[in-house]
């Protein structure tokens, strides 16, 4: 009897929401303006307790379409970010592939479904599996989103925006502390893109972020593209957001592309980074110093070389930050 192989299913979950229709894409308003001056000491502290005191440089997201290129060409990449949930499985090819990557590269875990902001308790099974993966990857820190996505055990698989209330800040911070105590690794929370605001909110998004990370004493994964997307959707100045973030807590930075529609912007991670987002990145780096930076590209993924080249555009900003710091 012949034994036959068929193709495997696609790893899950995917991260970026899909647009309902395409109108236009990839144009951005220049933010211009002068960059603020900051204390020199900021540039000397890129590694901090929130990223395990690591001085990681530019990384890219590990994605299935690039596996073959990575194994055949062994490109020089400072580190890869993996989506934790894709490897929180019991066996099979995903884990074997991860082990091959771990043999040659540094890996940092990024999660999409911890849902620190959901009113329900943390999922213990999720935490247990995540800890198993942490032991495997030895990730120096791990990140997930400042959002919610599950109710009464039902999962939306989305990164839903928080109401910016003190009650939500306290609950979210408590869950982050609980996860960190269980996982025994520094945690950084990422600001998400959003398309809605709540009547009940009592503060701005950046004030809420500061409330949460202060109460949890955790790090920040600062996504400058998400700040840009939300600023356009909610009509605020993204520079004010960047300037309000406690620089000493920034463990990592995300950059990405997005899709612009007629009346809103979606965080689709399917385009190059626009100039306005690079300007925000530059502003952030001037505050935080040279910080581990990762380009996210999750849909319509181009060749590895193209993604790698896009990520390395961050170099000139990091070099500038380092040269200022070295003066």
């Amino acid at each position, binding site marked *: 009897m012949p034994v036959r192989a*068929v193709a495997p299913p696609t790893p899950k979950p995917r991260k970026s929401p899909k647009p309902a229709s395409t109108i236009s894409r990839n144009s951005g308003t220049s933010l211009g303006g002068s960059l603020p001056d900051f204390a020199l000491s900021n540039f000397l502290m890129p590694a901090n307790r929130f990223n395990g005191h690591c001085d990681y440089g530019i990384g890219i997201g590990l994605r299935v379409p690039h596996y073959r290129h990575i194994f055949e060409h062994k490109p020089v990449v400072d580190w890869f970010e993996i989506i934790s949930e894709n490897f929180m499985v019991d066996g099979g090819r995903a884990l074997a592939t991860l082990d091959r990557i771990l043999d040659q590269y540094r890996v940092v875990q990024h999660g999409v479904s911890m849902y620190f902001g959901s009113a329900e308790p943390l999922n213990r099974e999720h935490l247990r599996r995540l800890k198993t993966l942490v032991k495997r990857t030895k990730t120096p820190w791990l990140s997930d989103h400042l959002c919610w996505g599950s109710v009464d055990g039902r999962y939306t698989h989305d990164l839903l925006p928080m109401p910016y209330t003190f009650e939500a800040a306290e609950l979210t911070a408590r869950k982050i502390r609980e996860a960190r105590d269980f996982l025994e690794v520094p945690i950084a929370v990422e600001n998400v893109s959003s398309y809605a605001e709540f009547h009940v909110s009592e503060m701005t998004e950046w004030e809420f972020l500061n409330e949460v990370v202060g109460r949890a004493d955790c790090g920040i994964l600062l996504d400058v593209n998400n700040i840009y997307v939300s600023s356009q959707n909610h009509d605020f100045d993204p520079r004010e957001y960047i300037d309000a973030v406690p620089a000493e807590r920034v463990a990592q930075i995300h950059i990405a592309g997005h899709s612009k529609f007629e009346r809103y912007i979606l965080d689709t991670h399917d385009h190059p980074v626009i100039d306005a987002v690079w300007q925000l990145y530059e502003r952030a780096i001037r505050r935080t110093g040279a910080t581990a930076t990762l380009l996210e590209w999750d849909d319509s993924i181009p060749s590895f070389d193209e993604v790698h080249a896009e990520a390395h555009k961050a170099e000139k900003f990091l070099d500038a930050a380092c040269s200022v710091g070295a003066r």
Partner: protein
Amino acid sequence: MNLAELQSRMASAIMSPLTGSDSLASRTVGGTKMRAEVNELIKPNAQLTSFERLEIYSRSYWFRILDGLYDDFPGLVAVVGQRAFHRLARAYLTECPSQSYTMRNLGSRLPAWLEAHAGFAKPVLDLAVDMARLEWAHIEAFDGPARRPLGPEDLLEPGPNLKLALQPHLTLLALRYPVDDFRIAVADFSSEDHAAASNAVGSYKRRTLARRFRRARPEPVHLAVHRKENEVYYRRLDRGEFVALEGLRGGKSISEAIERALSDGASSIVYEELGATVEKWFASWSELGWFCVAG
């Protein structure tokens, strides 16, 4: 309004099925008027109403989970057709929303749901249920747990009362149609389709494939869906082999499992060749790494 109430109401609005034109429904699953409900939760801005802002999330939710189901059940899509699959997927996901942090488990309840909702797959219900069972077994085999396999050396003198376990990633299926052949044809078609220059050719081939499936005659197939060296395999089994393996999976001892296979009326085991047949079975199963220690 506290956090729990806000999230419960917003989730209920987001997870309400979209209309036929993929717009936000006029009422929530609970029957509340959607526009009034959303206005209470979400601020409008200069560009979008509260309703339109929530609609972005609802569409995103539905498109994501529907895409997930399409990706995981391409064989079922081919069997029932795109339109019928879309209907059944929406109904299934409305009744059985994800209960897992991973979308990997989205389709875990689909085979049983389909069986209980025959109207969504008529007139090919048995074929559709068989395909759904095979495709869920495929997912289990792809990344399900594996224990240390027992090799031939572990089984040299097993003794009649030894209880063996089968690998957790292995699923045994008694099917009414040769859906393993169909699923492989779908996989082959998908890889050809990626390379095809013309959408028209791809669409024609897809219709031809669907017609072939729908004309299929019933043909009992016993199948093991398993993983070896990180590849998923479909292995056809003799009836007796299947019955014996089911016995082992059910916790029977080796002798009890063989006895079960022997007494099965439909099995083609010849009593005089029993020893040689069983030896062949065990050699093959252990070579495939299917045995592990019960535990």
